[in-house]
């Protein structure tokens, strides 16, 4: 009886796995650190144009490990992710393969892709300062360095210092000022916090609207998306967007990107999708639907994003930011930023 039960359970499992294998035809498989619903409009447009089906697994963690262990038999063709350090990690573990491709090289500027084509950026986003319209004068805060000024004591909100977007910003501070000075700056910023770091970038803008603090840090598209969401518009209108360091080195930027995996069983289709995502149609969807900055210089940011003024991006190589990640994480622990 026990054996029978086990046997029937095994059959049920086998039946369910069989349906997965039966899936053949023209397709491309993606491991994504971004939610599937964000990719949906882009992938739908791709399938419509090429007839190639797209398959996605989304998770916040563990996909690199899955890819690594699956090895040469991995079904994944592409990894899509945000944050330069995450992409760099894939490269360092040898999970991506180099790609020489004219279309991609033409569409994506050299500083937004790996020198050997082991990853390509699809969009960029600036890490902005948001200031209360009511309580902060125009021009009163204009650089990341200003955030450590004691005049802001008890007036700044940020998300966790361990979040990849903050870590990348702190890495860039290490690159520009050296580790010691960057740590002093971070300690100064921590000292100015109005509350323990929590929530996401949107929550910090809401906190300004609520009067909890006057200044916050956040990626550009969160602000744009809040302005376009009728439930969150009021909070977003309580703040003014500031492009930090516009007059000197420029605003710190990060990327969302794509990489071709080592195994890539559907390599041709995968490259077609990469090309498609770098071209105008997809780049416009990125710009309009998620208010990000297109990586392709021939595509303009959305009208809303353009209305904030032109972004002068920090020219610090993204690789340097990835290289400083570990130092930045440890620095956050040392100044006890999240407590």
């Amino acid at each position, binding site marked *: *009886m*026990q054996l029978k*039960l*086990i046997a029937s*359970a095994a059959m*049920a*499992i*086998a039946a*369910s*796995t069989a349906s*997965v*294998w039966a899936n053949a035809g023209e397709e491309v*498989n993606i491991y994504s650190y971004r*939610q*599937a*619903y964000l990719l949906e409009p882009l992938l739908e447009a791709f399938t419509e144009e090429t007839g190639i089906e797209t*398959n*996605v*697994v*989304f*998770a*916040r*963690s*563990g*996909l690199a*490990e*899955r890819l690594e*262990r*699956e*090895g*040469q*038999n*991995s*079904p994944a063709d592409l990894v899509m992710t945000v944050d330069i350090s995450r992409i760099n*990690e894939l490269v360092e573990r040898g999970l991506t393969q180099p790609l020489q491709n004219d279309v991609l090289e033409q569409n994506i500027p050299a500083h937004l892709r790996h020198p050997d084509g082991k990853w390509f950026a699809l969009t960029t986003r600036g890490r902005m300062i948001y200031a209360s319209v009511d309580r902060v004068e125009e021009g009163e805060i204009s650089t990341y360095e200003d955030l450590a000024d004691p005049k802001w004591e008890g007036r700044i909100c940020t998300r*966790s210092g*361990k979040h*990849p977007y903050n*870590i990348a910003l702190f890495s860039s501070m290490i690159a520009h000022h050296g580790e010691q000075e960057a740590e002093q700056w971070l300690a100064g910023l921590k000292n100015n916090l109005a509350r*323990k*770091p*929590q*929530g*996401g970038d*949107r929550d910090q803008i*809401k*906190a300004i609207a*609520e*009067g*909890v603090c006057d200044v916050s840090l956040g990626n550009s598209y969160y602000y744009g998306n809040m302005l376009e969401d009728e439930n969150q518009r009021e*909070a977003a209108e309580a703040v003014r967007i500031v492009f930090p360091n516009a007059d000197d080195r420029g605003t710190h930027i990060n990327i969302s990107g794509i990489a071709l995996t080592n195994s890539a069983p559907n390599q041709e289709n995968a490259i077609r999708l990469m090309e498609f995502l770098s071209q105008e149609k997809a780049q416009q969807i990125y710009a309009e639907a998620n208010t990000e900055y297109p990586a392709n210089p021939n595509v303009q940011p959305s009208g809303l994003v353009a209305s904030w003024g032109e972004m002068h991006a920090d020219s610090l190589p993204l690789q340097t930011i990835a290289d400083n*990640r*570990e130092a930045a*994480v*440890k620095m956050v*622990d*040392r100044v*006890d930023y*999240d*407590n």
Partner: protein
Amino acid sequence: MSQQPTISADQPHHQPLLARRTSKRWLLSAILTTAIVALPILSVIYLAFFPDENIWPHLVDTTLPRYLTTTFKLMLGVTAITLTIGIITAWVITMCNFPGRRFFEWAMLLPFAVPAYVIAYVYTSLLDYAGPVQIALREVFGWTSAQDYWFPEIRSLGGATLMIGLVLYPYVYLLARAAFLEQSPSLFAVSRSLGHSALSTFFRVVLPIARPALAVGLSLVLMETLNDFGTVDFFAVQTLTAGLFDTWMNLGNLGGAAQIATTMLTFVVILVTLERYSRRRQAQFAARDNRTPITRFNLSRSKQLLCLLACLMPVFLGFVIPALTLANFAYEYFAESWNTTFIRNTVNSLFLSGTAALTTLIIGVALAYSRRLHNTKGMQVLMRLSSLGYAMPGAVLAVGVIIPLAGFDNWLDSIMRSTFGISTGLLLSGTTFALVFAYTVRFLAVSAGSVESALQKVTPSMDMASRSLGHSPSGTLIKIHLPMLRGTLLTAALVVFVDCMKELPATLILRPFNFETLATYVYQFASDERLAHSALPALIIVIAGIIPIILMSRSIGNTRSVA
């Protein structure tokens, strides 16, 4: 059933007798099963030997003390909440007459159907500055900004403790109630006749007898608290699990993260061992007495009201409020949510959870019974090891699952390539099998633990009688034990089912392409602060949990007659 309430007698040496004529088949299959189930856990321990860098000096110098104290406070708070709610409600429902008692018998379990991450999102949306509660307060009192008044911060250690406690207390309630129902009323009567008050009897007789069951319930609660990441992350509470994810994701040091996970496991093992050690000289057989009906206390009106409130509060906070909030969102966004994707996701969830519950139950019974036959040190260690999946954060366990599965797939593939020239590719990785396997490893503690504690209460003379009448060990299991344990088995399977419906982190990582369960579907929106868009699937997770809960409670209530 024989009446011989031998409470806390010294353990009789019956085990060799049971095992004497047992075929080796049980032992071998138990060892094999445990080994397979333990593979993911062993994989994580293995990873711990290969860190990219020794993280401990840095952790000890900086955040470790805080991680530890926060974790300790969280576990202490959750223990206090779950024990208080679970024991008090189980006791008054079993022993007192008050209006609504029969309803609360099963309604107390309702919060169990609400995933911790969902209750966290719901309460945040209700209680934060822009939520309806604070808006109403501001309107009433004329406040204009957050600086004008004080309001408790839901995103805090206290908030996380409350949220986790509210959805986990049913574990304690469930096991406490089953234990109280099984206790012979004559014990209570004897204690009273010897001059103890009801309260003193409760603490000196009732609770000590229920202790093994309470320990199982509480250890499930604490393991789930320890491995929770969603809630603590959302509330910015820095537990050891937060440190683990930081080491893994930000420092890219998987080995270091595995070391933290292994440390957490060690911690759990020590806790469980201590609890067992402290009652090592107790054994309870046949304390069960289903014939003497329980005589419930008749209380004064005010005390009845008190009982009613004590039961109502946890259900109201842990179930009614979240369910109503979700129902409200689901109604608003119904047209958007009700589509073929939603139906497919529901089918996926039900099918996966059902398969996993069945598998977990079968393996749990096999292991617990093997241990009854061969209660050796080796078997005990194996059992403990295979139950550790519950104490590990889901995402880490998922990596532990990938390692042996992908390893097996690639090994088979290379053999097939070299001998037959065909590639089998990945047979198991990235299929629903991987998910069922992960769920089994994760929730085996639930089924094996409850089956084991129920089996312990069956007097060995049952086995002896059956065996001496010519039944094999398997025959004894099927003809004697399984029918007697019907209630326990059903309960265990249903708890696993509900747990699988809610499981998120391992499902995210291990699932096949384009495969969504209700939980993963809810998460991708809720994690983007768009809970309203996924309220319908969230509500279905909750409702799917209710049906087993009603069945579960019936099966427990039916175990004894009540006057």
